[in-house]
C-alpha cells in the first residue's frame, strides 16, 4: 500500500510495487499528459516532479513514492493560469509535433527552481536528457530564457 499525492489529490496505490509511476498516472489515473517515449530513462518524455524535483516517471517505481508529492504537466497550470514556462513555450511557438514537450516543460520548470537565471551551458546540461526528434531545441533554449526573465 502506497499513499501519495498526485496533482494535489491524495491517492492510494496497492498494485505491483515495481510498476513505474508513468503507467500509474497514465493507465490508472488517466493523466495522459505524461508521455511514454523510451521506458528506459533515455528520452525524458515522461518527466514529472516528485517533491519538486524532475524525475523520469518511467524509472520511478511506485514502491518509492510513499508520502511523496507528484506533479504532472496536467496540473502545472494553476486555476487556468499557465505556468511561466508554459507561457514562454506558447510565446516562442516551441512545439512541432508536441509529444516530447510535456517532459521538456517539466524539466525546464524544475531547472528554473534551482537555477533562476540559467546560462546556455546550464540549459544544455539540464535539458540534455530530453530528446526532441522534431528538433525544437533552439526555441526551447530561448523559451527558458524568456521564462527566467518573467520572474524578475
Amino acid at each position, binding site marked *: 500500500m502506497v499513499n501519495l499525492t498526485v496533482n494535489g489529490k491524495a491517492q492510494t496505490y496497492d*498494485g*505491483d510495487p515495481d*510498476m*513505474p509511476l508513468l*503507467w500509474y498516472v*497514465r*493507465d*490508472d489515473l*488517466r*493523466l*495522459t*499528459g*505524461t*508521455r*511514454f*517515449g*523510451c*521506458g*528506459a530513462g*533515455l*528520452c525524458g*518524455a515522461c518527466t514529472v516532479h516528485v517533491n519538486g524535483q524532475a524525475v523520469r516517471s518511467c524509472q520511478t517505481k511506485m514502491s518509492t513514492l510513499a508520502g511523496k508529492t507528484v506533479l*504532472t*504537466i*496536467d496540473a*502545472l*497550470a494553476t486555476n487556468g493560469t*499557465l505556468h511561466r514556462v*508554459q507561457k514562454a*513555450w*506558447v510565446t516562442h*511557438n516551441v*512545439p*512541432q*509535433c*508536441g*509529444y*516530447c*514537450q*510535456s517532459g521538456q*516543460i517539466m524539466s525546464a520548470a524544475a531547472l528554473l527552481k534551482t537555477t533562476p537565471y540559467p546560462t*546556455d551551458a546550464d*540549459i*544544455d*546540461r539540464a*535539458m*540534455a*536528457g*530530453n*530528446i*526532441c*526528434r*522534431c*528538433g*525544437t*531545441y*533552439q*526555441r*526551447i*533554449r530561448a523559451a527558458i530564457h524568456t521564462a527566467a526573465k518573467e520572474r524578475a
Partner: protein
Amino acid sequence: MFIENISLNRRQFLGGVLSTGAFVVASRLAPEELFAQAPAGAAIFNTKADTAALHPSVYLGIEPDGTVFIVTHRSEMGTGIRTSLPLVAADELDATWNRVRIEQGVGDPRYGDQNTDGSRSIRDFYDAFRVAGASARSMLISAAATQMNVPAAELTTANHEVVHAKSGKKLGYGALVAAAAKLPVPKAADLKFKPKTAWKFVGKERPIYDLNNIATGKAEFGLDVYRDGMVFASIEHPPVLGGTIKSLDDKDALTVKGVSQTVTLDTIKPPVQFQALGGVAVIGNSTWSVMQGRKKLKIDWNDGPHASFTSDPFKAAMLEKVKQPAKACRNLGNVDAEFGKGGKVFESVYYTPMAAHASMEPPAAVAEFKNGKAEIWCPTQNPQAVQDTVSAALGIDKKNVVCHVTLLGGGFGRKSKPDYAAEAALLARKLGKPVKVVWTREDDIHHDFYHAAAAVYHKAVVDAKGKPTAWLHRSVFQPIGSTFGAPGPLPFELDLGLNDVAYDIANIRAENAGADAHVRIGWFRAVTNNFHAFAQHCFVDELAHAAGRDSLEFMLDMLGPGKVIDLKAQGVDYSNYGADIAKYPVDSRRMRKVLEVAGEKSNWGKRKPGNGWGIGIAAHRSFNTYVASVVEVEIDAQGRVRIPRIDQVADPGVVINPDRARSQFEGGAVMGAGLAMFGEITAANGRIQQNNFDGFRVARMNDAPVQVNVHFVESGNLPTGVGEPGMPPVIAALANAIYAATGKRIREMPFSKTKLA
C-alpha cells in the same frame, strides 16, 4: 511518398500489389467533384462540417450561429498542416479565426489523397481549400444580396460579415447560413479569389491550433486513447523478418498479475507491404502488466533466410558493387567518350548506413470490432492506408473500416505504414473487445521500415578550371520497392537526387544497381535524397578544393547560368515528387538564387577556415523546393564537433504560415545534422543491434546546432514542400564544413565514427 508515380512498366509489374490496395493510389489532387457539395449519405463518418447547415465542400461547413467547421484531412505530425490548410480556407472565406473549429478528417477517399508524406499537403490542397472558402463566401454574398436587395457586386466581406459599403448595412455569416444553404454551390471555375494584397492569414504568423493543448498536456496522441472495456497488448515480433515460431512457452507470462492470455499472430508473408509482422501478443489489463508478461515468454524462432543479414559484409559488398557498371537511368551526351579522351579524373565512394525514424511516440493503435465493422484510433500519416491494410487483414470491405486520426508524436514517414493498426484490428476481432497495441521503443527500433543503407559512387573528368566535362553518378541501396515486392527500386527512388542532378555539364550519366533489403525498407524524411545529396555535394566540394577554388563560386559555376532542365530529353520519365513538371520544373536558376542568398546571409568567405573552425555549403532541390545550407563547425582538441550556426535559405514558393515553415527548416537542420553525426542502425544475423536511444543516437540539445537561421526567397512561385527539403543539403554542408576545419574528408555516415582529433 508518391507511389502514384509508378511508370507504366513498373505499374504493370506491381499490378497485383496495387490492386490489393496495399497502398493508396488515389488521386493525388482533390478531384473536381470534391469542390462541390458532398453526396448525401456517402460519408464513412460524418463530420460537423458535413452536418452543418451550410456545407459547400467536404472540407468546410457553417452553422447558423456562425461557427465555421474546417476539416483537415491531412495528418498533424509537427508540420502545422492541421492549422495551415484551414488558414487557407478561412482567408478566402474572410472568417474570424476564433470562430473557426478544426476537425480531423477520418480516413475517407472523398477527401482525395490523405497520405501526409512527400511534403505536398499545401502544394496539392492549397487550391482545394481556397475553393472551399471562396465557395462559401460566394454563397453568403448571394444570400445577402437577396436579403439586402442590392446587387451582389456591391457587396464585400470582412470579419465574418457581408458588408454593403454604400448603405453601411452588414449581415453576419451565421444569419445568412439558412438562405445560403438553399443556393447551388458555385463552380470552382466561376469563383473569384482574393488578391494577394487582401490576404489576412496566408503569409502571416499564426500559432498552431493545438498549441495550448500541447503546452498543458491535453493534446491527444495515439497512446492517449482509452475505450471502455479495453485491454492492452504488447507483441513479441519475430526478431528476424519473416521468422516463425518453433516453440512457445507462455506459462510464466500468464502468471503475471493482470495478464489474461496470449494470442499468436501469423507471420508476415512477402511482399511485406504494411501487414502485421506476426509474433505473440500478450494481453492484459494494463500497459505495464503486458510488458512484464512479455518478458516472461519463452519463444524459439525459426529465423528463416534473412538471418544471413549482417551489416559489415553487406556494406563491403555494396562498396564493391557500386564500383561496377550498372543500369543507366539517365543519359546526357556521351560520358564514356568524354572519359575516353583522358584528362584529370576524380572518383569517390560515399556510404551511409541504415537509420531508424524513432519518432518520439512509438507506434500505437486502438481498435474495436463490432458487427463486422472495425473502428481504429491511431497516429497515422495515412488513414486510407489504415483502411486498406485493416480491410485486407480482416477480409472486410474498406467502407467498414473507420480510421480516426489522433495527433502524431512524430512521423517522419514511419507512420505512413500502419502495421500496428492491423495488429490492433486483428486482436480486437479475436478478443471481441477494444484493444490497445503499444509498441515499446525497442520494438520501434527493432522493427522499423528503415531508411536504406546506401553506397554512392561518383566519377568526373575535369577541364583546365577543374569543372567536370563528364559526370557519372551511381547508387546502390536497399530499395523501398522491396517492401512492395518489386525487384529493385521504384522509379521515384531514383528521382530523388540521382536522376535530377541540375549541373551544367554536357555529359551526365546516372546509374543504379539494386541491393537485397533483408529488413523492411521505407521512406524516411527526405528519403533517398539524403544519401544522394550527401555524396553529390561533397564530391563537388572535393572538386572545388582540388581546383583551388572557392566552394560557393565553384557550385555556382557547376550550375552555369541556370535554366529549366529537360530531363525527358535525357531519357528520364521524371516523377517530380508527383507534381506536374510544366508547373514545377527543375530550374537551376532557382538553385543559383538560394546559393547566392546563402552566401550573403551567412557571411560566406569573410572568415578563413582553420584552427578548429570551418564552414561548408551545399544546395539541393527536393520536394520541388530549392534549399541552400551553410553550416559552421567548431572542433575542439578532442575532436568533438560543435555546430554554432546553420543558415538555411529556401525557395518553397508561397509560404502559408511563415513561422511553421521556418520551424520545419530549423528541425530539418537538427535532424539532418543528428543523422549525419550519429545515425546508424546495424544488423547481425538478421537481428537489429540497437535497442533504444542509447544505441541509436539522435541529436540532443547539447549536440544539436545552436542557432539555425532560416531565410525565404520570395520567388512568387507556387507553394512547394517545407517538411523534408531542409535535411539533405545540411548533411553535405556539415561534412564540407568539417573538411574546411580539419582537412579530413568524411565520406561515411555517421560522422562520429571518423576521428577528428
